[in-house]
């Protein structure tokens, strides 16, 4: 039973104004093509959750999609600041809710596991908890000591980019795993963007590689190069030059608008975006070949 649909159709069907969205991927597999489609569809009022908002949410906030941000590290990784987010927070335009990485991921772990909360050892740093009432405490019933807890995060929609999946949404991921699996299980609806659609037999040849089972997936979209300027391990490299360039582009709302006009509104889809990047970029981002050695599952 195929769940294969176009990315515009998947966004239209599953994501609505005002939803809580988790676009997943820790530096790796960030679904930029989906963000661009959301921007093109003019969806607004979203609460955007990600451990690391990265450029993807800097762009979505600049485009007016969001009313609130839930995050744990708001930097341009390896470069510096996320200027549009920072400006929106400093000006009071954007609401936010903040965690440490482990607090954020523990929220997803609770959401994915159907748990009412996840405990964490205390860190002694209480300023953030004093500003975020979602951080609470319980008493350890074995020792009487204080334990910090966070509640489940259960997004309306997760968008998750993966290397390969079959048309039913059984998805395999390698390289940095981030929060891909937890985001899928925590969310009400799951849109998968897929670098390569493969036959079910490929998935079944290595079931331990499957990170997300089709049963929790609502839509499967075939979107090669979806993750640029982030990357897809084994398919293309991280575009560090663009991460640096964004530091310039994002200095003013005007230059961001010009970027969006040219690279988002001015293009129909990711294929056009990738072509527009041109052969020099394609060449620079090529990933060579370094194959895993196989394992034997046995014929029983």
């Amino acid at each position: 039973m195929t769940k294969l649909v176009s990315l515009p159709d998947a966004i239209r069907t599953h994501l609505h104004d005002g939803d809580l969205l988790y676009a997943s991927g820790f530096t790796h597999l960030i679904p930029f093509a989906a963000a661009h489609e959301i921007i093109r569809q003019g969806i607004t009022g979203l609460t955007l959750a990600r451990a690391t908002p990265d450029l993807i949410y800097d762009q979505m906030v600049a485009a007016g999609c969001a009313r609130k941000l839930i995050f744990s590290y708001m930097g341009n990784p390896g470069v510096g600041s996320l200027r549009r987010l920072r400006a929106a927070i400093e000006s009071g335009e954007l609401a936010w809710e903040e965690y440490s990485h482990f607090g954020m991921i523990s929220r997803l772990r609770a959401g994915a596991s159907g748990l009412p909360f996840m405990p964490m050892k205390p860190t002694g740093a209480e300023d953030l908890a004093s500003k975020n009432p979602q951080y609470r405490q319980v008493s350890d019933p074995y020792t009487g000591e204080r334990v910090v807890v966070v509640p489940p995060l259960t997004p309306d929609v997760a968008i998750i980019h993966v290397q390969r999946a079959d048309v039913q949404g059984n998805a395999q991921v390698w390289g940095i795993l981030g929060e891909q699996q937890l985001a899928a299980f925590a969310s009400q609806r799951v849109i998968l963007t897929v670098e390569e659609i493969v036959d079910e037999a490929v998935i079944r040849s290595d079931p331990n590689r499957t990170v997300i089972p089709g049963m929790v997936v609502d839509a499967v979209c075939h979107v090669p190069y979806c993750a640029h300027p982030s990357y897809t391990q084994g398919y293309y490299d991280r575009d560090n030059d663009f991460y640096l360039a964004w530091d310039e582009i994002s200095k003013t709302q005007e230059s961001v608008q010009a970027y969006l006009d040219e690279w988002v509104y001015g293009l129909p889809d990711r294929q056009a975006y990738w072509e527009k990047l041109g052969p020099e970029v394609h060449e620079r981002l090529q990933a060579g070949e370094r194959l895993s050695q196989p394992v034997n599952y046995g014929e029983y």
Partner: protein
Amino acid sequence: MDSQHYNSQELMVVNAARLLKDHDVVFVGVGIPNLACNLAMRTHAPHLQMIYEAGVIGAQPARLPLSIGDPSLVTGATAVCSMYDIFSLYLQRGNVDVGFLGGAQIDQFGNINATVIGDYDHPKVRLPGSGGAMEIAAWANRCYIITPHQKRRFPARVDFHTSIGFLTGGDARASTGVRGGGPQAVVTDLGVLKPDQHGELVLAAMHPGVTYDVVAEHTGWPLKKAPDCQVTEPPTAEELRILRDELDPQRIYI
């Protein structure tokens, strides 16, 4: 190769590397800490193990990683795990010996602010926030901070506790129940600060040619000098060669 001359970055990397021990498991970011670890591995700590908060263990990157999630960290690593697992099975469980920390402000007791300058709800300058720093500062056995020595970076008290050092000193840290030992050294371009028995950062060593007055002038509290305050050994020709020729030939971080 000019081993008589070295810049501030090189000086900090070399002095940070010397704090690492063989067999240390280090939770490491990109940039200076990454260079320090790699330098230690090529000199006195060949069995040092680097783990990244992105969930990569035993990386052998073929190039200098530019983000903590660089694909070159993964290819050829010994293990990759999810973000939940790296924070729980490794860091919270107590499997990490050393964490590196940084931030806009480091105070007299080694507390760090990487969150906000001014009021949290109406920020004057909004900084990136904790990431994993809150947990690293609490749960790694030892923490090190590497930062240029500027007065605005060393206030007496931070505006916001993103991660803790020794709080207000004395047994304040221990009473929170955190397991790690807290910051053991702050390596700057002027020298090395270390906590005294009360958890207050004092001047433990100065780099060659630096005077106490200069360090004190760049520090936002009345800086005490440790009784056994040292002068650091200058970077050796071999340390500089490894750093310049092998680790960062394009001079991205040094």
